[in-house]
């Protein structure tokens, strides 16, 4: 900020008593002041200050001229959405505008303070008023006035919820240069502004950009210019109606002639949105198309166990294997859901079975790792730990690695069924280990991520703030996992250095799923989120109606993920758009598996479902 701000208590021109700074701009501050000409009432005014520090006389005079132009312009305007001007004067290098004081907040502040999204109906009404004031400016005689700087921070919302356009200072200093001239407010500006031909359709574009920002909370100044088309609104904010999205994108057309031809036409389109949606709260998650599609989704077959299926199924050569809290491991024919065999343990099974060398490996609440013949369901061997086994096995180099609530990671020889080693991890291990490049990775309920070599020597440990129940996934030299501390972590697999962290809305035990350099993850806030693996930034997120504890699975160009709301969701994985959802009669806590055009998912309604993928 150039120069010194005025201290509260100073009076300007023996009339305006400065109370406090209410805003800071590029060339000076804006203050709230009291007009002392009205001693018996408190009349507040806004004092807009401009400090001219330019050394070049030409630049200096341009700045002064622009400031005067703003004053003269405001003096000729009369509209409820435009602040009135009372006075204008200069003092040394400082010039002042005395304006109507607006008791309210600008849209940028409102956006920052709002948790979640601002309701669409509020935004529609504000936009209608903005169209009105733009129409007023654009029909100004003798010359239309182009506002040129529409953006959330230039729109105030007063206490009666009406909009006021502020900052008519076109006082942008252009320094002609061979390079780097930055024009207008990048991000909100239309393409033609770069060519220096900003007409009234430029204001329509910038209004569309402002509304897009309000609806999506994605700041266009942090995105490449003219990239709104790459950020469809509904996948980001499903409460926006398709009609509203259409209005916004029409105003954001690259070619000016493809936009609304006047602000009035845009206003009419918005009134039609109001009429169409009746301003009722929009339908929660899922467009009408998805709802109708939902009725079409019928399972190919379903298979009932005697208790909840909390874990995830596995598939191998025509057979689906799934554990249940009725203590059994089931084998079901994948083509028709026919029962093949069941194998009883002495505890509930949440562990996901692994098929290896003709055997099924899985843990049970009965503290054991069970190894049974995949074809016949007969016991091969079991291995005892000192606590319930909720972790799932990982098999590598003829050894099975599995965690237990006894606080150990166990490495067991698959040939002999004997322990190779166990490592005391200090807390229950429910996370499923992953083996990559001779290192074993797993999380603990104490929040530590271990990297252990094949001789059980700890290579490194990373401490998250809360439990790591999620299973680490190693991909291209990084290890990814979530924690109950509501963070998705990317660590260097060799050293454990944090490469990036992504903040989730709530705790997560979901295991990352990776496809095409994108990580898909669920969290207790009910969201399924896609995060860019290189930048650690989100690409889209989709809200389900309850916690997402299982993991997404990718098959073809779809993402399948269950939610505790009881649905299995099928999304387009590149955009997060809903394709269909299928309702089960209980929470889904496990992860689906998709093979040969069929997706299999277990539900706490005791059933295993097969659906066409």
């Amino acid at each position, binding site marked *: 900020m*150039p120069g010194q701000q005025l201290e509260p208590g100073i009076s300007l021109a023996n009339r305006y008593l400065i109370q406090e700074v209410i805003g800071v701009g590029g060339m000076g501050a804006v203050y709230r002041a009291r007009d002392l000409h009205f001693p018996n009432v408190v009349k507040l005014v806004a004092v807009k200050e401009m400090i001219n520090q330019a050394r070049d006389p030409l630049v200096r005079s341009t700045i002064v001229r622009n400031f005067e132009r703003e004053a003269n312009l405001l003096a000729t305007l009369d509209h409820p959405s435009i602040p009135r001007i009372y006075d204008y004067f200069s003092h040394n290098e400082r010039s002042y505008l005395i304006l109507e004081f607006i008791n309210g907040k600008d849209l940028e502040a409102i956006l920052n303070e709002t948790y979640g999204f601002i309701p669409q109906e509020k935004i529609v009404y504000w936009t209608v008023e903005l169209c009105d004031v733009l129409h007023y400016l654009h029909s100004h005689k003798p010359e239309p006035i182009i506002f040129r700087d529409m953006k959330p921070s230039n729109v105030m919302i007063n206490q009666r919820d009406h909009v006021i356009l502020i900052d008519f200072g076109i006082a942008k*200093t252009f*320094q*002609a*240069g*061979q*390079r*780097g*001239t*930055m*024009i207008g407010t*990048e991000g909100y500006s239309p*393409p033609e502004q*770069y060519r220096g031909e900003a007409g009234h359709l430029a204001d329509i574009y910038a209004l569309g950009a402002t509304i897009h920002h309000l609806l999506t909370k994605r*700041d266009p*100044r*942090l995105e*490449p*210019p*003219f990239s709104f088309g790459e950020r469809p609104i509904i996948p980001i904010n499903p409460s926006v109606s398709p009609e509203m999205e259409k209005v916004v994108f029409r105003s954001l057309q*690259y070619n000016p002639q493809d936009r609304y031809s006047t602000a009035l036409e845009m206003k009419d389109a918005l009134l039609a949105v109001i009429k169409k949606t009746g301003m009722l709260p929009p339908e929660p998650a899922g467009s009408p198309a998805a709802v109708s599609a939902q009725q079409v989704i019928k399972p190919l077959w379903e298979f009932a166990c005697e208790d909840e299926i909390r874990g995830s199924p596995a598939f191998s050569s025509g057979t689906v294997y799934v554990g249940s809290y009725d203590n059994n491991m089931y084998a079901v024919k994948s083509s028709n859901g026919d029962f093949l065999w069941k194998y009883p343990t002495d505890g509930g099974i949440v562990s996901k079975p692994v098929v290896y060398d003709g055997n099924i490996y899985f843990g049970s609440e009965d503290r054991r790792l069970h190894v049974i013949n995949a074809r016949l369901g007969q016991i091969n061997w079991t291995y005892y730990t000192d606590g319930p086994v909720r972790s799932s096995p990982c098999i*590598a*180099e*003829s*050894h099975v690695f599995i965690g237990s609530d006894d606080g150990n990671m166990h*490495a067991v*020889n698959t*040939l*002999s069924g*004997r*322990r*190779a*080693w166990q490592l005391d991890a200090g807390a229950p291990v429910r996370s499923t280990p992953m083996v990559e*490049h*001779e290192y074993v990775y797993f999380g603990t309920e104490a929040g530590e991520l271990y990297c252990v*070599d*094949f*001789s*059980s020597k700890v290579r490194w440990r*990373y401490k998250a703030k809360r439990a790591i129940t999620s299973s680490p996934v190693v991909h*291209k*030299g*990084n290890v990814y996992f979530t924690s109950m501390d509501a963070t998705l972590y*990317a660590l*260097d697999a*060799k*050293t*454990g*250095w*944090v*490469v*990036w*962290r992504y903040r989730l809305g709530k705790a997560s035990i979901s295991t990352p799923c990776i496809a095409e350099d994108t990580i898909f993850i669920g969290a207790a806030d009910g969201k399924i989120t896609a995060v*860019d693996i*290189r*930048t*650690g930034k989100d690409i889209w997120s989709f809200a389900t109606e309850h916690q997402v504890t299982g993991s997404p699975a990718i098959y073809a160009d779809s993402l399948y993920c269950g939610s505790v709301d009881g649905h299995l969701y099928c999304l387009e994985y590149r955009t997060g758009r809903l394709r269909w959802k299928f309702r089960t009669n209980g929470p889904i806590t496990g992860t689906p598996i998709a093979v040969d055009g069929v997706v299999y998912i277990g539900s706490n309604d005791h059933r295993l479902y097969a659906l066409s993928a």
Partner: protein
Amino acid sequence: MKRFIEKFRNEKIRNPKQPAYEEIPTRPIPRESSLTQQEPSPPQPEPPQLIVGCAQSAGKQRDHNEDALFTLTTTLVNDYNDITFGLYIVADGMGGHQHGEVASSIAIRTMASSIVRKLYTPLLSPKPNPPEESLLEIMQEGVQEAHRAITKQVPGGGTTLTAALILGNQMTIAHVGDSRAYLIENGSQIEALTRDHSLVNRLVELGQITTDEAAVHPQRNVLYRALGQGEPFDADINSIQMPESGYLLLCSDGLWSVVNESELQRLVKESSSPEEACQRMVEAANAAGGPDNISAILIRLPG
């Protein structure tokens, strides 16, 4: 399976006093200790290290240099592990704005000191602890510090900035503007790791103009993002695993706008060292008219 048995026999021979056959503990076998022969690979410097060259020229048509560059290469070898650390920055100050050279110089100094303080100094402490923050966050803060420093010290000034941080196997790139980072894989491939924040590049991406039109576009020097310009401000930051081998090239537009990618790749391939390659690249840019300041940093990756 085969390895398991080999290892199993191995242990038996080494421990002749082991009692019963069944009692012998087993464990998974690391690959490097297996008996299979590794493919012979070309000789590499030991320990693995980064080898770096750089070159700079004001060009043929400018009387002063608004580019700035920074290189820092370190190798830390001890009995536990080897840590390769390198930090490389190119900044191209915006001409036409006051003090382009001041902005680029503030950018590299602020960024470098921030990264060294937060990341490198802790590495040298007696009990090295990884920092709390992630590599991306540390780079992000470095860029933001530089952005604030420019805004404060040269208001209105601006610069590009392309920085590469190499730590172990991680390569983290922070980027604003139209300087570039390229990955040149041994001989064959050259790939830009950065996306120019220039108006013309955006118009090309949108299909509004062709790359040929972009090369002669009157606004080809207009950036939509630069350090010191705009608020809020965000850099592109991403992290990738360092390739097994190859080169990382950082350069200002004074190089890439006049020497094409295949030529850059050829010069790297034909030079005996990164220093030589950098000199030849700068010479090539000057030979092509040298319309702008030229900066190049070339890093040969270990492996």
